[in-house]
């Protein structure tokens, strides 16, 4: 099968006179790195070959007829029509072929649905336009969005050739890390609109729907880096919310987990200390580029009619509490950043927009103040639950 596939690829490329194809590129579906993805691939090949064979037969008959049954070669038209036997045959045979395809398809379908005995769970939340990952078994929690290099290069007239950017549009700032040979259950939901979480090498994608939870599972057999992206149209930057999954050997994964815990402690420390205005503004600039610029634009000019400008905005140049609560809670298409950003990032970007992008209010908000607000919100939410 593999050989046929390669031959096919080579012929097609030669026919089109293309000297080089990209190394990581396939013409066909990828086999992927899980049992499920292999089953899906086999099913795909089965269906493909059935179609190829039927195609050869039907088109063969048609072209034979087109060649030999032409008026110009003097063929006289016969006047037969309606033949019950023939009509029964060409109804029964396709039916049998369909049954032959339905059986393995049903098996794979049932297998995909079997979430029993999963060893760990990850909750994935789709946001416009980033992914949030929560490891339900050990408090790891982070957001993952398009990496900076791609983000710069993808701006209109950026002057950067995407070919020079490693993994253009398929790279993130913080990848999802998982252990191999472990049955992982994914729980999907969304914060704003519907997204779809897709890593082709895992063999499936799943819609993430606000207010609902969908599930799927995987067990990756080979360590490596697997890339995918959001597959359901989710607004302006739908094309710019990739997914990167790094599958590690179990020990390496454990090491990564303890490293993450260390980082969390350090972050908590950073939120306690007093930051200078310059430190906050410098940090805020990157936070802005990664989280805000896609709508409010790099220079804070916004997009007239859809996204308001930051520069000279009455909220940004006005009372800081109004600005903070807007950022915390969101409004319309503006996401609620309260839980999305760390206290440090939140304080930094708040300070940055008041003192950059053509504004100069001159005040500063400290991470510790944000931290207090964030825990208030969490408390309120807990109250709601009761």
């Amino acid at each position, binding site marked *: 099968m593999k050989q046929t596939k390669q031959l096919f690829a080579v012929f097609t490329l030669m026919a089109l006179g293309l000297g080089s194809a990209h190394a990581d*590129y396939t*013409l066909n*579906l*990828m086999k992927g790195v899980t049992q499920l993805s292999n*089953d*899906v691939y086999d099913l*795909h090949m089965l269906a*493909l070959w059935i*179609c190829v064979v039927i*195609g050869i037969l*039907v*088109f063969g*008959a048609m072209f034979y*007829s087109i060649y030999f*049954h032409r*008026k*110009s070669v003097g063929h006289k*038209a016969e006047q037969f*029509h*309606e*033949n019950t036997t*023939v*009509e029964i045959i060409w109804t029964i045979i*396709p039916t049998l072929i*369909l049954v032959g*395809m*339905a059986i393995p*398809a049903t098996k794979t*379908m049932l297998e*995909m*649905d079997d979430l029993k005995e999963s060893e760990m769970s990850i909750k994935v939340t789709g946001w416009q336009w980033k992914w949030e990952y929560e490891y339900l078994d050990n408090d790891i929690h982070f957001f993952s969005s398009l990496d900076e290099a791609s983000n710069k290069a993808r701006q*209109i007239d*950026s002057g*950067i*050739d*995407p070919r020079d950017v490693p993994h253009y*549009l398929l790279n993130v700032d913080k990848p999802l890390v998982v252990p191999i040979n472990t049955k992982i259950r994914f729980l999907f939901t969304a914060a704003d*609109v*519907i997204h779809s979480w*897709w890593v082709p090498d895992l*063999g*499936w*994608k*799943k819609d993430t*729907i*606000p*207010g*609902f939870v969908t*599930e799927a599972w995987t067990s990756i057999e080979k360590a490596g880096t697997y890339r995918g992206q*959001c*597959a359901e*149209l*989710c*607004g*302006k930057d*739908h*094309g710019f919310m990739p997914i990167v999954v790094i599958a590690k050997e179990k020990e390496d994964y454990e090491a990564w987990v303890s490293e993450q815990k260390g980082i969390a402690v350090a972050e908590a420390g950073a939120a306690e200390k007093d930051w200078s205005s310059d430190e906050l503004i410098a940090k805020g600039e990157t936070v802005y580029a990664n989280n805000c610029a896609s709508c409010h634009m790099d220079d804070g000019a916004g997009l007239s*009619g*859809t996204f308001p400008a930051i520069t000279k905005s009455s909220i940004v140049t006005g009372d800081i509490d109004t600005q903070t609560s807007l950022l915390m809670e969101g409004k319309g*298409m503006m996401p609620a950043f309260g839980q999305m950003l760390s206290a440090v990032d939140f304080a930094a970007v708040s300070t940055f927009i008041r003192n950059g992008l053509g504004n100069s209010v001159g005040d500063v908000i400290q991470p510790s103040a944000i931290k207090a607000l964030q825990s208030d919100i969490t408390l309120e939410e807990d109250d709601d639950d009761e």
Partner: protein
Amino acid sequence: MSAVTVEDHDHHDHGPAKGLLRWIVTTNHKDIGTLYLLFALLMFFVGGSMALIIRAELFEPGMQFVDPQFFNSMTTMHALVMVFGAVMPAFVGLANWMIPMMIGAPDMALPRMNNMSFWMLVAGVLLLASTLFMEGGAPASGWTLYPPLVLQTGNALPFAIFSVHLLGMSSIMGAINVIATIFNMRAPKMTLMKMPLFVWTWLITGFLLIAIMPVFAGAVTMLLTDRFFDTSFFDAAGGGDPVLYQHIFWFFGHPEVYVMILPTFGVASTIIPIFARKPLFGYASMVYATAAIAFLSFIVWAHHMFLVGMPMAGELYFMYATMLIAIPTGVKIFNWTATMWKGAMTFETPMLFSIAFVVLFTMGGFTGLMMALAPVDFQYHDTYFIVAHFHYTLVPASVFILMAAGYFWLPKWTGNMYDERLAKLHFWLSAISVNILFFPQHFLGLAGMPRRIPDYAVQFADWNMISSIGAFIYGPSQLIFVYIVYKTIKGGTGEKVTGEVWEGAKEQSLEWTLPSPAPYHTFSTPPEEIPTMSTSR
């Protein structure tokens, strides 16, 4: 013998009114047919220009021309304009022109409503187009208008929704008219099983339209109230469900794709026997297969939603039901092949487009069958593989057959012959470029490129470039068609065509018993005899 009565037997003026007013107030089925067809052709170019904007942006990785929000508006508007502005109206235009002539009727049953449904279509499309200039831009949520995303549309949302209402009403009126005409105005000898297949397929399409357009109207009205009147049909926070919208939409949407393909089948079944000089192989089984497809189209909708997390029983049911569609579809394809078999074929342009239709539509059917397998659709869904699938079933199928129909009936409509050499050029350019345009999209989808994205990873660059090149050949080469139509109306090759136009056509269908061009009013008295070569005898 003449079945045509042009003589004055009452006081009505038998020629058309003069000047521009003729086209505004006309109730004549031929005039209205012409209006529909010309409007559809215009919209084909409007929608096509949007597609070229999309393909220009996708020519190379990186963002070059448009911002992502506008790109999304383009994919949305392209689809809406093509579906509701081009393909559907074009078939209504053909129905207007041909159904009365094919069943031996003087006109459509409800001529004033006919006029109204055309102008409502124009109003609907203009309203839709106006959203491009509104604050916040045109709808950008895909033609499927899924909430919650669609609720983020700017000022355009209520206008787009009202436009859908207008288009829906226009379609329903068109459908009622077709059904009323077919049931009430057939020549005495034209029993149901003697109707040409084009008439049959439109009859069934008419019922589909009446069943589904109100459903779509309901769905978008719920969007309207969700956005403006605080309901929460589709908002989980208020106890609603965004997936509910998808169920309603696809209950409309899947039959809708058959609204665009069933009349296509009908035209192909009309053209192929004539150029094969043979009866259609299985008339009755074609009628039954059409009915079967129409029935199945109502019970397979959730194959567009395999990923929303339906219960297993649902997934399996929709998988099996969808696979069943392959059977009647196969019957059709085998029938066309058997009709060509041992014929005496000639390859005038209508036949060339029809053969290309059979082959390329079959490819769309193959990918459809593959996608019906739910677990594999988990990979295919929302990728360029889907884009390739439905474009194969729409462009080299519906659109090719519309072109075929144009060449096939133009001599009847105008009395002039089109330029066969130019038409063949149009065919070959279209047939080759459409494959350069859409075939590589199968590879892109399988390799992992999602649909509806304005920019892509560099490993997708080669095929996207090839696809765009195909688009830039396909699009402009359609201008040849416009030129040919214009020349034909103006006198064509100068050769005056007979009533029959195509050898033996008189044996196949009634319109060829009329003179060419067909007089403004035809069959004021029903024809005595009807041709039955390709129907049941």
